Every structure is written in C-alpha cells, then in structure tokens.
C-alpha cells in the first residue's frame, strides 16, 4: 500500500484543479506535502550524472585500447615489416579516428580522476563546485585532445 501511495503521490497538487475530479481520492490532502519517490529508471539526466558515467565509459574504452598499445609494441619488437604494417593501419583515416578517441578517453579519464582527487580531499562537493568541476572536466578533455593533436600534426 505504501508503494502504491508513493506511485500516485508523483502527481502534483495542480492536477486537483484540472477538473479531473474523478482522479481525486480520499487522501488528496496528503499528497501535496509528501516527498516524491525517486524513480530509479525514469530519472532526469543531470550533467554530473552524465560525466560520472562518461568517466566509467572512458575507463572501459581505455581498457580495450591497451590492446592497440600491445599490438604496437609487439610489432615493433618483432620485425620492421610488422612495425610498418601496424603503423600504416594506425596512420590510416580510420586508425587516426580511433586514436583521436583514444586520446580523448585518456584525457577525459585523467581529468575525471583529478576531479575525484579534489573530492577525496573534501573540496568541490557542493552543487556549484561539482557542476563547475564537471564542466571543467569536459571542456578540459576536449581542448587538451585538440591541443595534443595540433601539436602532433605540427611536429610531424
């Protein structure tokens, strides 16, 4: 019964004046002041939430990306032919796209980690702080990635 009340409690007081009197139940007066139950699967996405899951996604991406590093190192350790073969693939358009994503994942996960350090020391946990940190992480990771690739093309 409590669960049912939580569920219908989600409808706010303004519905009472919408003319749908049939929906009004005996406990309408109780509805208005009760807290809403957090619905775990229907949840307005917040920026900090998105950045939290993005930290995890970039972590998993980097996990898979280590395969590329191992192939690169093993090819170099094997023979000049294998090395050329791998560098050609990594240097192709598709290869560069993947490496660009790899760079961004690394920068994003690194800045996300630094954000966690700041939180570990007890700073930036209030609404203003965490929103600022979330924005700074995304802006920082995107600009660092671009800067690194500009440098990469410049020194080539």
């Amino acid at each position, binding site marked *: 019964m409590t669960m049912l009340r939580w569920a219908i409690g989600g409808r706010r007081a303004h519905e009472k004046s919408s003319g749908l009197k049939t929906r009004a139940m005996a406990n309408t007066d109780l509805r208005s002041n009760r807290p809403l139950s957090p619905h775990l699967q229907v949840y307005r996405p917040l920026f900090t939430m998105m950045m939290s899951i993005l930290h995890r996604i970039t*972590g998993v991406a980097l996990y898979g990306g280590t395969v590329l590093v191992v192939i690169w190192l093993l090819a170099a350790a094997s023979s000049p032919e294998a090395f050329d073969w791998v560098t050609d693939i990594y240097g192709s358009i598709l290869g560069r796209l993947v490496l660009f994503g790899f*760079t961004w994942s690394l920068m994003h996960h690194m800045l996300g980690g630094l954000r966690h350090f700041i939180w570990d020391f007890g700073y930036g946990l209030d609404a203003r702080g965490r929103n600022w940190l979330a924005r700074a992480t995304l802006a920082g990771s995107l600009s660092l990635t671009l800067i690194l690739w500009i440098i990469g093309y410049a020194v080539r």
Partner: protein
Amino acid sequence: MADMRTPLSRVRGLGSAKEGTDHFWRQRVTAVANVPLLIFFVVMVIGLQGATHSEFVAIMGSPIVAILMLLVILSATIHMRLGMQIVIEDYIRIEGLKILCLLGNTFFTIVIAAASIFAVLKMSFGG
C-alpha cells in the same frame, strides 16, 4: 554499546571482506602514478610518430624510456584491473558469470602486462 565489533576489529578496520580500504587505496595510488606516467607516454607517442623501425627500437630500448614504459605498463594494468573489477561487480548479477568475468579480467590484464613488458624488454636487451 550497540556496536558488536571488538575493539581489535575496529582498530584493524578491515571490515567483513577483510580487505579494508585496500582496493580504494590501490586505485588511488596507481591513479596518482598514472598522471605523470601517462603524460610521459602521450609525449613519447607524439615524438615517435613517423619514426622508422630502427629509430623506434633505439628510443624504446634506451634505459630511461624503457624503465618509464615498464612503470606505465605496471601502473596502468593494475589500475585498469581494479577499475574493471568494480564495473563487473556493479553490472553482472549472475554469480557464476560474475566470477568468470572477474577471472577473465585478471587474466586479460596480466596478459596485456606480460606481452608489453616482453616487447619493451626485447627492444631494450636487443632483439
């Protein structure tokens, strides 16, 4: 006192899993190490682009680069094993599959570490 724990258990602070904050702490230690190490790695990769095979092997095999690369590999693989462990424990509910994935996680990260350490050492000691 409502606390049923013995004073010794409280002092040890290891909790029911007998690991305490070990996982958290190792995650942070490797994270701290990863910051300078991966900055080195990215700078090295940018510097190595366009290198011929012999140049690449010479640079990768030089003592400082090789030692730093070994540290990158160690710190990163430990860190990613801990991270993926949490992801698996969070999302996989079937007990048997979860244990399989945790095993696979350990094997994968160790294979990654062993293969890249081998490659770096081979370039260092001459191959």
